[in-house]
């Protein structure tokens, strides 16, 4: 019934093969190592800025926060400052908790039909947990990769590497984040495939980025732990990119690296046109980033325009006699 994942999976596999063959067989190192990464990055920057500016151009006519707790009203009633923020500061806290801790997802429940015709709503944290695992490990992986794009490597990167490699097991020393990322992505995928409701709403645009990220994680882990690539050559290439003096290092780099790099390029270029823009969208969500103080502070609607109303004069005109008869005061006798 749902071939959506197939499209996506096949696309990702084909993309991988293209990059591999392109480099190993056709010798297109420059295309895959320099041109495509730059192109992808430029598309990302322009596309991302475009989208955000496009959003910002749309008006916010009304203050419509979703209130999830007690409003500020009488002094002795305890306001829920996070879920029903009244001041900008409280809004900032709400947004931070949302962005950093996925607070709304943490509230998730599962509806169940139990014995005795009872409908139950059970608190479930799996989605929240998987999402947190996925996003944070991704962040750590991305920051760790700065070691390839900076020289000297800044302290926070080395520091993060130390934390990430804290276990000091295996060789090369295991970075937890890489495996966590793969696990997170796989868990999200498994959810999508095996939960009937989720499978039903999922489309290629949902599977594609997941498969792509899984591809990135798998090729990355492989390079580090299994097939060994020449990290020094890779850093030469990436430093060339980061200092705008691109070159393909002598001796060449394994095709596997180019598959990894190509996947990353595709992902980066894909971001502005896809649901991954939720990373920008969350900041602009009017149900979260506005204060619940609309009765105290007037919110301006930039396109507010006068409308036709039924004025009191017209009303009295319609009903004057009846009003008089009923003893209701009127303006004009």
């Amino acid at each position, binding site marked *: *019934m749902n071939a959506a994942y197939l499209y996506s999976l096949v696309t990702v596999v084909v993309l991988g093969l293209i990059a591999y063959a392109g480099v190993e067989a056709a010798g297109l190192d420059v295309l895959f190592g320099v041109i495509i990464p730059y192109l992808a990055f430029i598309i990302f920057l322009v596309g991302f800025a475009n989208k955000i500016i*496009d*959003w*910002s151009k*749309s008006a916010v*006519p009304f203050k*419509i926060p*979703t*209130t*999830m*707790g007690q*409003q*500020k*009203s*009488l002094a002795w*009633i305890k306001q*829920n400052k996070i*879920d*029903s923020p009244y001041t900008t500061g409280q809004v900032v806290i709400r947004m931070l908790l949302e962005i950093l801790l996925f607070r*709304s*997802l943490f*509230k998730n429940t599962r*509806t169940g039909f139990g014995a005795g015709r*009872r*409908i139950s*709503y059970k608190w479930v944290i799996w*989605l929240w947990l998987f*999402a947190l695992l996925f996003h944070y490990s991704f962040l750590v992986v991305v920051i760790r990769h700065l070691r390839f794009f900076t020289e000297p490597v800044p302290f926070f990167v080395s520091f993060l590497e130390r934390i990430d490699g804290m276990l000091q097991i295996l060789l090369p020393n295991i970075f937890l984040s890489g495996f966590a990322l793969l696990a997170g992505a796989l868990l999200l995928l498994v959810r999508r495939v095996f939960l009937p*409701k989720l*499978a*039903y*709403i999922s*489309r290629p*645009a*949902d599977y594609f980025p997941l498969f792509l990220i899984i591809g990135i994680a798998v090729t990355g882990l492989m390079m580090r732990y299994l097939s060994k690539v020449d990290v020094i050559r890779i850093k030469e290439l990436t430093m060339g990119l980061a200092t705008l003096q691109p070159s393909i290092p002598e001796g060449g780099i394994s095709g596997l690296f180019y598959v990894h790099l190509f996947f990353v390029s595709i992902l980066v270029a894909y971001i502005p046109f896809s*649901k991954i823009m*939720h990373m920008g*969208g*969350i900041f*602009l*969500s*009017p*149900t*979260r980033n506005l204060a619940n103080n*609309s*009765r*105290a502070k*007037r*919110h301006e609607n930039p396109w507010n325009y006068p*409308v*036709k*109303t*039924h004025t*009191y004069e017209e*009303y009295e005109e319609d009903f004057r006699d009846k*009003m008089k008869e*009923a*003893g*209701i*005061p009127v303006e004009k006798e």
Partner: protein
Amino acid sequence: MAETPKPDELFENIDHGMPDEPWEEVPPDLSEGRFCYPTKKKNLEYLDMPTTTKDEWSPADAEWPIPDNWKEIIHEGFKDRLEKYRSLKVFMDTCVRCGACADKCHFFIGTGDPKNMPVLRAELLRSVYRNDFTTAGKILGRIAGGRPLTRQVLKEWFSYFYQCTECRRCSVYCPYGIDTAEVTMMARELLSLLGLNINWILEPAANCFRTGNHLGIQPHAFREMIEFFCDDIEEITGVKIEPTFNRKGAEILFITPSGDVFADPGTYTMMGYLLLFEHLGLDYTLSTYASEGGNFGLFTSSEMMKRLNAKMYAEAGRLGVKWILGGECGHMWRVIHQYMDTMNGPADFGETPKSPVTGTVFENAASTRMVHITEFTADLLRNNKLKLDPSRNDNKVVTFHDSCNPSRAMGLLEEPRYVLKHACNHFYEMPENTIREQTFCCGSGSGLNTEEIMELRLLGGLPRANAVKYVHDKYGVNMLACICAIDRAALPPLMDYWVPGVDVTGIHEMVGNALLMEGEAERTMDLRFEPLPYAEETEEDADE
């Protein structure tokens, strides 16, 4: 409807399994009983709205009476709204289909129809958005989740956007705060561009525009009805109340939904207000012009909402009151709290509301100048300004239903509870995942309180009813209190069907029952003319 199946049968038939075909290929069910009746053309005309090409039509018809350039109209309308509402644009772009909202919608829980999952409801609009307005959609079409606008899609919109009560429960769980209410509002605006609207919304809207209230009550009748309640009050309490109408110079203008004037059990709540104001000796007036708190414009378009709401400020200004007190109503308070000041403000009358009884200044209403009656009453109780005998409500075991709008678009959670707990001695909360910001809709909000879709309403109200059943079975709850006029109309049939033995009340009916009026005769009946519980030795006023 006569052929509504028995509760057991209806419950058993709820199926949450997903169909085999992709949702894009499943046509909407537009058989009788599954759609709201379209609006009569006269309402559209009266409200200067675009009309359909035929006077009489049914959503079950294969061909809908829409203009030939309907696609263009929708496209332009869509484009316009994307520019005017950032909410729409961001909500179209950011959904990742994580599924958190899927089982949060009362209509999905009740019907099992996948397109009642908020994510798919929004996807109905989103698919067209992608196809028409995004780069990826223009290039990749279906693969990017795009879908051209067809008549079938339009029918889907009509079906499912009039199967959403704009309750915002899904937006609580969405990690990006995507609010289906907002999406539904936009979709209804788009449908209205073709004259596709429902009668149960537009008839009240047209009435309201003309007479000031949804029910089309004309000024003299309005006065008569109120006076009729005053007679009842006198019969029950021996206290004579003479409220004023359209009185200039009053301190406070009181506005409540007209449902409270017209239909039981709202009328008892109205009697409660009148008793309370008399008890306080409040300098207030009622208005026959601003005789409606509710606003069915909210369910039509922001323009209509603004047109209908304008009378409140206009009347307050004309009468020269200091501030406005608002009655118990759900969507009325969404409009007042989140839209009114922006649309119809800034208020050009009066001052920051201040309780004449306690001196409390309502800073949180400084700009809008409109205070919720439970905020007002809670403040009175806190300052010991009311004499109450809650034991008069001892035959009532009460629970509280948070109405969607006050809870999720206002944050009014504690005030009604505080009042309720002072007005009665037996109060029990429903399970925590079904109250406060997680409350379930009555299943009939946003103008869907119409008879022809009774089965849908009963299914949509099932999660609420099921939670009431829980406290009914466990604590013997027999009274469901709420602060919404639509609730007071929609919940009684819902209770009769799923939880027989539970009545519905407004908070101020409970207050009215408990109020010890000055000079009152010994009461034997409550406001419904039902006998008061046997007067035992008065228990100490339970103030927990």
